[in-house]
């Protein structure tokens, strides 16, 4: 799949995210928009996760450690044909499979129940460890937030991944610089994240998380890295794609009103691809 097709998919995902959060009047747009290119590239070019193998217990896996970006994951699963698009209006409503934070109990294709920050990365380590132990060829990917890196468990998991030389594990760090209470460096500075991962024994790649060429290259480098896990520190823009949401932490977890929704959707509809 080429860049232009992926750009269309990423834009579709953003529209799904916007529709879900507007319909639910609740949810997380900013941190969903920031990861749209990363997950489009992962699901449509890098990882072997399909509608057909979604229910397989052992295959390539993706863990959304920053589980509040559930609209991003649901948007991806719609684009993959794993979730029907009509279901998106049930997001965050009673009796829905689309829980506020992803639950693997309801959807084959949600590879881990997440939402409590710091826990998804450990599950990804467990998946990668079991594949190594059973000599299975599959890879495990996880998307971790930069604010999430304030959780001590992230570093327990990072230590374990390097200790067991999990070169089948690829972590994407969504480095958008903002968390609920504001700038990550003002709330509790987790930097320098590259040096921290390196010190924990990881191979580190730094990229622009919205540039497909850089994302493809990073995935390839991660695949070719042996004996250690890889962390892709992807600099991103929170709220990317809608001008009044970009780099504004106020859009971490609030829903747009009708006027804001229409304005945002109009901008997404005007996006030129390639």
């Amino acid at each position, binding site marked *: 799949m080429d860049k232009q097709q992926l750009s269309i998919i990423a834009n579709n995902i953003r529209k799904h995210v916007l529709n879900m959060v507007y319909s639910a009047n609740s949810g997380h747009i900013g941190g969903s928009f920031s990861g749209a290119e990363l997950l489009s590239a992962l699901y449509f070019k890098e990882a072997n996760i399909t509608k057909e193998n979604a229910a397989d217990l052992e295959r390539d896996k993706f863990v959304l450690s920053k589980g509040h970006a559930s609209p991003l994951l649901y948007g991806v699963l719609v684009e993959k044909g794993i979730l029907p698009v009509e279901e998106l209006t049930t997001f965050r409503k009673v009796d829905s499979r689309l829980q506020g934070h992803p639950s693997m*109990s309801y959807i084959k294709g949600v590879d881990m129940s997440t939402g409590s920050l710091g*826990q998804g990365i450990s*599950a990804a380590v467990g998946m990668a460890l079991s594949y190594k132990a059973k000599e299975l060829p599959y890879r495990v990917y996880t998307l971790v937030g930069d604010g999430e890196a304030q959780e001590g468990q992230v570093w327990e998991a990072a230590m374990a991944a390097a200790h067991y030389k999990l070169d089948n594990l690829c972590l994407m760090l969504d480095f958008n610089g903002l968390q609920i209470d504001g700038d990550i460096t003002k709330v509790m500075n987790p930097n320098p994240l590259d040096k921290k991962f390196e010190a924990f024994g990881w191979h580190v790649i730094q990229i622009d998380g919205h540039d497909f060429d850089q994302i493809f290259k990073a995935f390839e480098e991660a695949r070719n890295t042996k004996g250690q896990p890889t962390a892709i520190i992807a600099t991103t823009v929170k709220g990317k794609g809608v001008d009044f949401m970009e780099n504004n932490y106020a859009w971490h977890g609030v829903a747009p009103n009708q006027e804001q929704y229409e304005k945002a959707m109009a901008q997404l509809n005007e996006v030129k691809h390639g």
Partner: protein
Amino acid sequence: MAKMATREAYGKALAVLVQERNDIFVLDADLSKSTKSADAQAVKPTRHFNMGIAEANMMGVAAGIATGGNTVFASSFAMFAVGRAFEQVRNSIAYPKLNVKICATHAGVTLGEDGASHQAIEDIALMRAVPNMRVIVPADDIETAQVIRAVADQKGPFYVRLGRAAVNTVHSDDYVFEVGKGKVLSSGKDIALVACGVMVEQALLAKEALKEHGLDVTIVNMATIKPLDKNLMVELAKTHKGIVTCEEHNVLGGLGGAVAEVLAQEHPTKMLMIGVNDTFGESGTPGALLKKYGLSAETITERVLAFSKTL
């Protein structure tokens, strides 16, 4: 009579299981020689992973391994498995109903000399309050061996509470453990003593002493705290004047609480709850601590006698 800690029986049972089955993974957090999960490592090092002193991550890793259809045993001391990693157990294991068996050792005051910081007396309460979690407290080596096999054979999360101190075998070789079933070990008629873990032996000893005082009590091993054997509890309540629960755990929220919840709704019966009386433990030998914290056969005897006079 054999004497073996339930953790020892756990290690032996696990070592057999990992050799039989390729889907079993074992995790520990730098306590494998104490929890005895090292017995499994000795026979199958390719399925045993030490996660270091990082219990929160260990529980998440256990969950991740289980997503692939594997059966995972994760061990540490009860204090750390349940206390330190409570939310990881809740959100990463119990909520997605993953196939993880938390086998926690050194529970209760009989952990002994290490003192209150290491003596979990809240773990049954915490674990039984979590949806999807089943809670089992075996009493001796014979029962532990069967419990470990039973939890390996049943999908989904279990919390198995094990002890550090050697305890006498209370079951005969023909004992059969079943998840969710209590077992009447000795029939009586006046009062029923419902116990779990190390307290089963103390209750059996108390029965002999109570006989000399003219009280004929029934002794029940209620190894499964959740799901509790409701039918047996109601039957015991109907056929006895009172119910006494005995546990090496805080009197709040443990076996006593579980039994009271059932009886209060199904067949209100006067109860006496014997356990640690909402206080922290301290350093000492297991025997001295059982005595000091009111968990010895002598104390059970005295308290049951006093209780019988109120019925």
